[in-house]
């Protein structure tokens, strides 16, 4: 009996073993992937594949191969790509997924579907929209980092730390893709030919599963994120607060948000929904050459001025969101949850762009740095 069991066990392990083995040394890692709209409803998949050769001594050589393939679906494109590379294609360690503007404007879910289905995919990968074509971003050669994946993911992580983007990845937008009462935004990347770099250029607003084409510019992105209730490691706001000085730089103040309090008040009566958003910012002045911050009057004045300017900014941002019909804050979901009867009567897609959203930003300077 024991002998038979032993034989069975050995057979089980040795015969079926290595069944789903995936040798790490035998895969071609795809770290960056891009999708563009092709001709006749096809898509173009661009991948950058780094190949490292083992060097017995000293620096090893790394070469990056960039391939573009046109196919009907992302997986078909992957199969085509696989045919032109050595070893096998594996997106298990994908770090950046870039989607071209044109394709994003149609629908991004068709591209992402495969990523949600296959468990070996890296749902942690950064997601970004390319201004223009994704292939342009991926094949951009003049970069300081060795790999485009490192460059773009570093860029996006930096933008996330400075409160310019929310750090979305494939997993995080999943719920919002399917949820009708809530939308999302993705960071935009553009190739800056003049400065020879890839540049973060704001947040692209989405409606449902497609890109609306309306962007929050980089200058407004921090405020946009604060309104959304998101702050990275630091959040700098630079605003003009006076016209008094001849030296232009004296007219500006830069503050870093230390703490914020956000309160969204949704009122639903009959078939009208209105929202008040109150944002209280406690800030530290990090740059203000005009100084005199030791006086209470200066501080009060600055508080007031900043509150006004930022409220105006907030209004602008809300205007853009409504224009894009992008319900980033999930107001629709809240209405659906707390006022289901009102929600039933409304077509949220129609309501959101026209609803009344009143922002109020309250700034309080609490620190002014170590000089005064």
């Amino acid at each position, binding site marked *: 009996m024991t002998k038979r069991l032993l034989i069975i066990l050995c057979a089980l*392990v*040795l015969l*079926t*073993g*290595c069944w*789903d*083995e*995936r*040798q*790490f*040394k035998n*895969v071609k*890692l795809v*770290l960056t992937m891009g999708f563009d709209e092709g001709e006749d409803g096809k898509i173009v998949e661009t991948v950058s594949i*780094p190949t*490292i*050769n*083992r060097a*017995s*001594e000293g620096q*090893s050589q*790394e070469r990056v191969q960039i391939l573009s393939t046109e196919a009907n679906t992302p997986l078909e494109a992957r199969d085509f790509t696989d045919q032109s590379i050595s070893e096998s294609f594996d997106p*298990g*360690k994908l*770090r950046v997924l870039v989607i071209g503007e044109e394709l994003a404007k149609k629908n991004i879910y068709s591209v992402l579907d495969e990523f949600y289905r296959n468990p*070996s995919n*890296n749902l942690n990968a950064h997601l970004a929209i390319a201004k223009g074509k994704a292939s342009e971003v991926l094949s951009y050669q003049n970069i300081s980092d060795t*790999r485009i994946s490192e460059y773009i*993911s570093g860029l996006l992580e930096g933008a996330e730390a400075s409160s310019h983007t929310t750090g979305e990845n494939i997993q995080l937008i999943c719920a919002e893709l399917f949820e009708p009462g809530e939308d999302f935004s993705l960071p935009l990347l553009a190739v800056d030919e003049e400065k020879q770099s890839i540049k973060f250029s704001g947040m692209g607003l989405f409606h449902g599963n497609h890109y609306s084409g309306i962007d929050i510019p980089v200058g407004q992105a921090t405020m946009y994120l604060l309104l959304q209730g998101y702050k990275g490691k630091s959040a700098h706001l630079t605003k003009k607060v006076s016209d008094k000085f001849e030296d232009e730089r004296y007219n500006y103040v830069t503050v870093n948000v230390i703490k914020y309090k956000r309160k969204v008040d949704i009122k639903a009566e009959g078939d009208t929904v209105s929202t008040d958003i109150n944002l209280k910012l406690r800030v530290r002045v990090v740059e203000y050459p005009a100084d005199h911050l030791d006086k209470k009057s200066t501080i009060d004045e600055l508080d007031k001025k900043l509150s006004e300017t930022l409220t105006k900014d907030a209004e602008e941002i809300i205007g853009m969101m409504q224009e894009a019909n992008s319900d980033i804050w999930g107001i629709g979901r809240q209405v659906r949850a707390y006022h289901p009867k009102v929600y039933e009567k409304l077509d949220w897609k129609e309501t959101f762009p026209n609803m009344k959203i009143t922002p109020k930003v309250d700034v309080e300077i609490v620190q002014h740095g170590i000089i005064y």
Partner: protein
Amino acid sequence: MGFMKRLFFGDHEKLKDRTIVDQAKEPEQPSSTKLADNVDYLTNEFNRTSDLRIRILEKGQAALMYLETLVDQEKLHEAIFSPIELGHVDDISKIPSSRVTKNLEEAIKALLKGHAIYIQDGSRHISQFNVTASFNRSTEEPQNEKIVRGSHDGFIENIMVNINLVRKRIENRDLTIKYFKVGKKTNNNMALLYLDGVTDPELVQEIEHRLKYISADMIHSPGYVEEFIEDQTFSPFPQMLNTERPDRVVANLIEGRVAIMNEGSPTTLIAPSTFFSFYQSSDDYNMRWFTGTFVRLIRLASFIIAVGMPAFYIAVVSFHFEVIPDELIMPVKQTINGIAYPPLIEALVMVVIIELIREAGIRLPQPIGQTIGIVGGLVIGDAVVKAGLVSNLMVIVVALTAIASFVVPSNEMSTTLRLLTFPLIFLAGTLGFIGITFGFMMILIHMTRLESFGVPYLSPVAPLRIKDLKDTFIRVPIYLMNERPKDSRAIQPGVVGPSREWKEVERSNNQQQPKQSIEEGKSTGSESGPNADS
């Protein structure tokens, strides 16, 4: 019958020389009054061995016999000839230090022990003199169990010296020693040590019972005894602790365990032992308890590293490379790209090489052993990577595993760990993380099932006894280990009484005395500190 006899005639046996050993019926061969018959019998029994010396004394009327290879000539002279030369006695048979017997079989035993016997014609009495030569090395610290602080002596090959080392440390009448004779041909001495009143008598009985079943021509080391009496021989885990340290033996005896010693080997067996006792070292108790705990935790972590590390690496690079952090992915890929063999083979090759180096190093004399270590470790390690046979990472992993396996204070457990690596490597190479999970599960199941003399191997973790965890993962201060752990089966629980009560006393004194001094200050007008009036 015996009762009546004792009542009427007294117990004569009490007056006889004896050692307290339960011995089975001894064969008897009564001596003859004829000297020649006795000598003939003895020489025949010894097959006319050349080292049996027969010295004819008193003009052929008497004979002194001894095995010259076992006898110390000086002692012989001192015990037998000097009393006569000095005129204390006029006949060798009257020297008081002799033991007398009439049994020739006993005389044979005495001769084998290194005694000299003196037989006179016309008398059936055989006088035995203890003139054994013993060659002992000094009680040096054992090479395989060195510690930094604490006692630096170790057991040697002489069982008497070993027991002496233990008795010196436990000056207590309850320390009981039972001798056994084992090995049908070799007839070795074996001793069972325990602390009466602390050790479970059932445990002692059980071990005696098992020891009596041993029937083999030779018992030449504790390893033999271990395999005869342990509960599960088909287990990679040692179920008895091997040690050459007297302090370790003493500590275990006090905890209520039993020690088994063998003549001719410095290794002592301790039973019952649990998994955690293999991770305790005398050093732990000489350190501050924080450091002791830290070191203990490091050692237990080494178990996981030693057993699971190569398996984990193999599983990662051949099944689940998604778990490698993003920043490491390219460096890892770089090292393993272009390696011809799958990681499974790679790991096996490396682990076997490490074992080869280790094994080669042990046997060779010290200077050559070091060379082997350097050649094996540095040269082969470097060349193998450069040649592209094995990846850099695999060398790191295997080296780390080897180091981790040597962390265990017990050599037995260390070899077990290195052995357990292999099945896990296979499982990881065929089934990935699932294989490792199954492997560890099987090991765990096996360990929970294992028993060492009635004590669960994983106690006090399984079955859980929180009180006894004081000396497993952590090492609490000694005065808090006030009870003996249950896994020693001790019948007397308390081991440390309230020992730090002085602190309480001090505190209460400090609280009371200032009041007194104030009162005194009022009455006498002088201020006296708490120390002044005590």
